[in-house]
């Protein structure tokens, strides 16, 4: 029987017909307090602290100053819970703290063939390594803490095949935004997606993570990519990888989808046809090439989005002025993302009408960027250089948009109010965000390279 990569990982972890053993459980402050409280009330313990890791990311401040009172209480609850239940924690101030989906891969604990869960929808990020990784709710977090398993209905499978190579100025972010625009925000609901094709194989791990990260924005349960030499080269030497790395690699090579294995659905994406993408609406499927214009509304949902975004059909996207730039999030705050943006920013100045910030995904990414002098490039241009965290991706911390402000953002969601009540978000790649910062409007980055 020929099997897909998903089927191999699924079957290797299945207990009975509905329980999945969890290899790695990542925990953060926002979706875990009620789960730990549930354990406490029932007198249960954390079954496998050796497969559990916690960090603080969602509500930590990324600038000077202390967290607000409620955030502080939540961070303190995480600290207390991890101490009481014996869970390893990287808190605010620790050299390994960062966005949970940035530090897993960075530490080498995200590995091919694993099952990885976290109380966060962007857990799909880890699928870039050939792991089966998906977000869960707080009740499931409690279930995993107590039993190291998660109860699951078997998802269907979808292959998204990318044909051709990326053009100049186009990135992984444009591939995934273009894909979501093509299939819709529920185009992959109920499915685990495998991303394949030469454009995927040509991407760095950072690029692959950007794509896997946004699987959930197409509704997918998870997104996976076949591990290859790029994967293994990224992992080698990181602290959490197996001691016998070479033999582990040999095992991981067998995880790829067998020739002729059948998927429930197959989608093709024409990569050379993609121009840099930018979202115009209030869900990540409402995207268009930067060379295009705000579209005519197709339904009530589009009309509502245009009203919220204060946009008129027919307006060229490149004429839309912005107030803020956010370069960060679990989608695009890794070292390569910062390098790509710095490349555009180098020797230029942020437009006088724009307030721009860079929020590295982890303390580790920040340190690496500073070793490379990227912080100097950003600062010299007028960017605010911040500490690690989720920051303005979801505005659970002091980094938020004011009502009516328009932001070019490398994050993953342009939902109403996501970055601050009344705030307007345009999703785009790091290079495109950098270009927008310089010109003060949405801009085709290809004009600046």
């Amino acid at each position: 029987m020929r099997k897909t990569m998903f089927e191999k990982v699924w079957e290797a972890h299945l207990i009975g017909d509905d329980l999945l053993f969890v290899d790695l459980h990542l925990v953060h402050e926002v979706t875990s307090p009620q789960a730990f409280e549930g354990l406490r009330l029932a007198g249960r313990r954390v079954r496998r602290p050796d497969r559990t890791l916690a960090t603080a990311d969602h509500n930590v401040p990324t600038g000077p100053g202390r967290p607000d009172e409620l955030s502080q209480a939540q961070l303190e609850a995480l600290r207390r819970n991890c101490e009481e239940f014996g869970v390893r924690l990287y808190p605010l101030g620790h050299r390994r703290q960062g966005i949970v989906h940035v530090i897993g891969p960075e530490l080498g604990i995200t590995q091919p063939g694993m099952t990885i869960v976290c109380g966060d929808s962007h857990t799909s990020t880890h699928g870039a390594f050939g792991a089966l990784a998906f977000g869960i709710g707080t009740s499931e977090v409690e279930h995993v803490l107590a039993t190291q398993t998660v109860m699951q209905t078997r998802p269907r499978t979808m292959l998204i095949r990318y044909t051709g190579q990326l053009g100049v100025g186009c990135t992984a972010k444009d591939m995934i935004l273009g894909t979501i625009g093509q299939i819709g925000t529920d185009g992959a609901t109920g499915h685990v997606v495998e991303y394949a094709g030469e454009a995927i194989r040509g991407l760095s791990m950072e690029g692959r993570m950007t794509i896997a990260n946004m699987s959930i924005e197409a509704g997918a349960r998870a997104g996976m990519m076949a591990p290859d030499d790029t994967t293994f080269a990224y992992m080698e030497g990181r602290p959490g990888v197996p001691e016998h790395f070479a033999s582990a690699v040999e095992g991981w090579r067998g995880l790829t989808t067998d020739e002729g294995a059948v998927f429930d659905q197959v989608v093709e994406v024409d990569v050379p046809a993609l121009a840099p993408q930018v979202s115009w609406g209030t869900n990540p499927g409402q995207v268009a090439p930067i060379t295009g214009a705000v579209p005519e509304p197709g339904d009530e949902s589009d009309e509502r989005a245009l009203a919220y975004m204060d946009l008129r059909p027919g307006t060229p996207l490149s004429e839309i002025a912005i107030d803020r730039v956010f370069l960060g999030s679990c989608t695009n705050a890794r070292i390569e993302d910062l390098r790509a943006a710095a490349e555009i920013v180098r020797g230029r100045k942020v437009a006088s009408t724009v307030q721009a910030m860079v929020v590295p995904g982890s303390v580790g990414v920040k340190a690496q960027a500073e070793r490379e002098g990227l912080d100097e490039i950003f600062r010299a241009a007028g960017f605010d250089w911040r500490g690690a965290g989720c920051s303005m991706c979801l505005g659970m911390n002091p980094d938020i948009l004011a009502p009516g402000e328009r932001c070019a953002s490398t994050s993953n969601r342009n939902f109403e109010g996501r970055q601050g009540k009344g705030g307007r978000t345009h999703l785009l790649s790091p290079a495109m965000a950098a270009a927008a910062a310089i010109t003060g409007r949405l801009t085709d980055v290809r004009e600046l390279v």
Partner: protein
Amino acid sequence: MKPVTLIEGPVAALDRANVDTDQIVPKQFLKRIERSGFGEFLFWDWFREPGFPLNRIEFHGAPILAAGRNFGSGSSREHAAWALQDYGYEAVVAPSFSDIFRSNCTKIGLLPVELPEEDVRELIERAPAPARIDLAEQTVTLPSGRVATFDIDPHVKERLLNGWDEIALTENRMAEIEQYEATREREGPNVLTA
């Protein structure tokens, strides 16, 4: 969890597609460490907009919410399900749900019911006309008297009908889990050295 069997009463209609969990409970309310009391934060911003459908007095107290497709998309926050239940909804009926939201609902006894677009349309257009949801029979009696059927995972259905605690159920299978750990468990990540 309270058993879920029959849900009967007026229907509140939210005729919007892609209602994301950021709208159901905005992020500023996720800082609480309690599990209860989220009802007052439900649709926080939308309830403050003029003309928001759920503000209609005849929708108040309805146990059933009917909405557009892809309900509950986006963030995995279970707070969204907690808020809907705490506000008073016992079931949400829509043409489709996001996977994580649907799962979160079933963990707390809020019934997600997926019906064909035309059946949801009838609920929305006739709202607040009452409907009746019978989980055991997997049927929804629409205001016109027509009976629609829906699918649900048999394990989930059994757990909901009996109000079983999922963790306790899994704990009853600890021998199976231990067997897995003893014979099939793969090498772990070096979390403690990483």
